[in-house]
């Protein structure tokens, strides 16, 4: 359903669905993971039917997330190659966060910050998946020496915390930059939004 024919398509339905499967998995994993990470947050286990169910479900949700993340990763990989302009953007990001984006270089579909987040999430997912398998007591831990399991537990916790912080930044950026969330809800953005925030992409898709 397109309300305004001048709007620009940023994501197709399949990309959006893919993103939301990953997003929902992330929320479930963050809540259940935090329940097992810090005693103060153990009550979150109640959301999943108690501690035992939290322990059972968490790794399976992780596998689902990894599968869909891999698909998303290869879908968007070619759009996230860092360029000289992206690094320039990253250097100036502080000015923009401070409220002045007049000197920001023109960005394509993704800006330098989004691209760095993309690569960080890729790396974090890899570490979380690998360490998650190692500490998955019910099926896999028996195949690994204790030192590897201990390192796995530490890495899993550390990268999960970093990833939660990264996703908070990701979500906040979408809230802060008005008119962004609709791109992930129904796929389109206004022309003005595109020209403001991703001018090179705007030129590319409109020919202006």
């Amino acid at each position, binding site marked *: 359903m397109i309300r305004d024919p001048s709007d620009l398509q940023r994501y197709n339905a399949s990309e959006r669905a893919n993103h939301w499967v990953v997003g929902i998995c992330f929320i479930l994993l963050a809540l259940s993971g935090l329940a097992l990470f810090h005693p103060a947050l153990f009550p979150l286990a109640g959301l999943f039917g108690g501690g035992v169910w939290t322990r059972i479900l968490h790794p399976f949700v992780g596998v689902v997330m990894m599968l869909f993340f891999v698909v998303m990763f290869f879908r968007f990989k070619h759009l996230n190659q860092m360029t000289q302009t992206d690094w320039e953007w990253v250097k100036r990001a502080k000015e923009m*966060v401070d409220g002045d984006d007049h000197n920001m270089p023109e960005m394509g579909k993704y800006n330098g910050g989004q691209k760095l987040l993309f690569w960080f999430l890729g790396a974090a997912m890899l570490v979380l998946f690998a360490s998650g398998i190692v500490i998955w007591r019910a099926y896999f831990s028996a195949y690994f020496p204790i030192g590897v399991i*201990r390192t796995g537990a530490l890495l899993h916790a550390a990268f999960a915390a970093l990833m939660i912080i990264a996703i908070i930044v990701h979500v906040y950026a979408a*809230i802060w930059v008005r008119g962004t969330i609709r791109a992930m809800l129904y796929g389109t953005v206004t022309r003005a939004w595109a020209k403001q925030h991703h001018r090179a992409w705007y030129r590319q898709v409109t020919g202006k």
Partner: protein
Amino acid sequence: MALQSLDIAKRSATTTEPPHARKTIEVAKLIDVSKCIGCKACQVACMQWNDLRDEVGSCGGTYANPTDMTDQSWTVMRYAEVESEERGLEWLIRKDGCMHCEDPGCLKACPAPGAIIKYANGIVDFHQENCIGCGYCVTGCPFNVPRISKKDSKAYKCTLCSDRVAVGLEPACVKVCPTGSISFGSKEDMKELAEERVAELQERGFKNAGLYDPAGVGGTHVMYVLNHADKPSLYSGLPNDPTIAPTVSLWKGFTKPLAMAGIAAAALGGLFHYVMKGPNEVSKEVEAEVEKELEAEK
């Protein structure tokens, strides 16, 4: 349920003080390996008192039976044949089981509130009704003691017969040992007893005899008298210098407050950024430009 509910020194995944109105003496079990004949009466007594029956296994080449601790076998006699030039062949027999650390790695690692309790008397006890089966206790233990049941996914290990001790009885293995190799009492008394025995052994030519009460885990409430205390690992891999692994300490120590602070800072940072800097909206200027471009298209 915790039996000694008023004398709890530490409770897993609990950040507030556990109930500890009552003071008790610290207890300890002393296992004198030099008196042990490897008869396994302690294993039988453990099974009988705790009403456990392990499966009939296979022989691993030593007298050890079963070959390893399981959720049904909380103590196992291990038999090591050690050869040295000085003494020739020695048969070193050790009753393996939970060491009841003063600073228990299992309790430190456990994410389930109240699944692991350390009583004021030093006994570290698993409370299976609170156990979620994650196996973090296995990850945290420096002695490779906890075992996760295949049947119910709960962690099991020696309780030091906390139920017997709570009513003034000695652990079942102590009760049954025919050579007096296992003693039980206050930790202080047990250390004294050990000292006497160590002196005896040294007199008899075991010049490295000593007490195994490793400081790396704050001491233990199960201690060994070893005739070769300089090389604990001779006794079927008893750790020479056990400590909670640095990775576990980091995971369960510094990482927790740091991660919580980082997550809170990110969330609050976002909120206050929004409140103080305002949203990043499309400028009127750009809107007008786009409007003009669309007009021109028509």
